[in-house]
């Protein structure tokens, strides 16, 4: 769920004037026909830019998303939980890697994308700017955040850009256990001691609203949705996905005896959906702007890892260069 449009007015159409109407029409027809676009195919500049932004934002969300959960790897309460959490956070690193690779096929390097993340220019999912305080937060993230992610990502397996679609197929396959392990943690806590149940309810209280905000601004304030849907790089609107998420999650919470922290939440028989309370969009946009509770910590952790790793990356390249020149010398004297 890391693919929400977060720029209110992105500058996409620069240079579009120079594009030949025939090429654009042929491209639009291919996409409308559900064909896959591959990296070397002709594509409108705005499509390329939108994709780079969306895929890299998705990738950033995966690797920033490693941090709140990684915060509990050393404190997981059993050997099994520790192994599962390690594997899950590692998967997220892998997913970031698949997605960066997909974006790289469009001509932007991973390092350039990292720079954009570190400088604060690039966005990532707002949800990861909230802190993980207790073990139950690990359950809540798996259940709610990964649950939301799946809703967003499953349709993207059919997105129009081939490398992105293929990355999503792999991601979805691997993520199938993530939400289940989160729900299992919550279920276990809810059925546990009084303290454990309180921990689970507290986590739901803190993560519920950020989770439903994750789907992004309401459709009437999401300017690029129509174009993105037409281009098949978004397959359902923010509000459609949000509603779907609420509808499946509320009964899950009830089934394990937890209360969703929304006094206005009620089943609407006529609509066949849950009605839910007003979302605090002021908070959402503040978090998008980088004012989330632990946004500074998240970006600093990523920047530190990158800067502290520079000498390692340089060393490996230096060794490769030395090896290459040694081989050349050997060949010359061979």
């Amino acid at each position, binding site marked *: 769920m890391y693919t929400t449009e977060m720029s209110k007015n992105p500058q996409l159409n620069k240079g579009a004037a120079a594009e030949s109407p025939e090429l654009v029409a042929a491209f639009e027809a291919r996409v409308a026909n559900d064909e896959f676009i*591959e990296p*070397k*195919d*002709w594509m409108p500049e705005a499509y390329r830019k939108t994709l780079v932004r969306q895929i890299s934002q998705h990738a950033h969300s995966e690797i920033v998303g490693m941090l709140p959960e990684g915060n509990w790897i050393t404190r997981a309460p059993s050997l099994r939980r520790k192994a599962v959490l390690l*594997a899950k956070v*590692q*998967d997220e690193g*892998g997913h970031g*890697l*698949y997605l960066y*690779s997909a974006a*790289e096929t469009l001509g932007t*390097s*991973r*390092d350039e994308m990292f720079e954009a993340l570190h400088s604060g220019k690039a966005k990532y999912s707002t949800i990861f700017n909230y802190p993980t305080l207790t073990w139950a937060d690990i359950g809540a993230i798996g259940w709610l955040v990964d649950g939301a992610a799946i809703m967003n990502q499953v349709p993207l397996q059919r997105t129009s850009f081939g490398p992105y679609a*293929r*990355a999503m197929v*792999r991601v979805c396959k*691997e993520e199938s256990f993530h939400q289940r392990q989160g729900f299992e943690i919550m279920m276990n806590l809810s059925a546990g001691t009084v303290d454990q149940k309180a921990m689970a309810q507290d986590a739901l209280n803190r993560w519920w609203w950020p989770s439903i905000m994750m789907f992004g601004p309401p459709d009437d304030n999401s300017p690029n949705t129509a174009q993105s849907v037409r281009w098949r790089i978004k397959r359902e609107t923010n509000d459609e996905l949000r509603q779907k998420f609420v509808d499946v999650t509320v009964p899950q919470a009830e089934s394990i005896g937890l209360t969703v922290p929304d006094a206005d939440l009620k089943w609407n028989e006529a609509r066949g959906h849950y009605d839910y309370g007003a979302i605090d969009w002021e908070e959402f946009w503040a978090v998008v702007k980088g004012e989330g509770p632990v946004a500074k910590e998240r970006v600093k952790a990523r920047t530190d890892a990158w800067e502290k790793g520079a000498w390692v*990356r*340089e060393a*490996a*390249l230096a*060794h*490769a*260069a030395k*090896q*290459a020149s040694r081989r050349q010398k050997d060949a010359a004297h061979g």
Partner: protein
Amino acid sequence: MANDPRPNEWPLWEVFIRAKHGLSHRHAGSVHAPDGDIALRHARDTYTRRMEGVSIWVIRSSDIVASDPGAAGPTFEPAESKVYRHPTFYIVPDHIKHI
């Protein structure tokens, strides 16, 4: 690496995995790595964490020579008119077996 467009980055490698014996290697994705040996390690650690493979190939992405999608017409369409390369082109009566 003198001709590398981004000399300060680990180059990109394409990863091909044989899922099981008897099958061809298939493109799985890419990794960054400073050299071939480490690229293999990275490919293993990234793409075979769930028993996806029995063999891995890696190749520098910049070493791949690809056909031009703009030339897809001349490259692939001539094959469309050569239906006689397919067995269904030939009519054999039903009572003839093992052919």
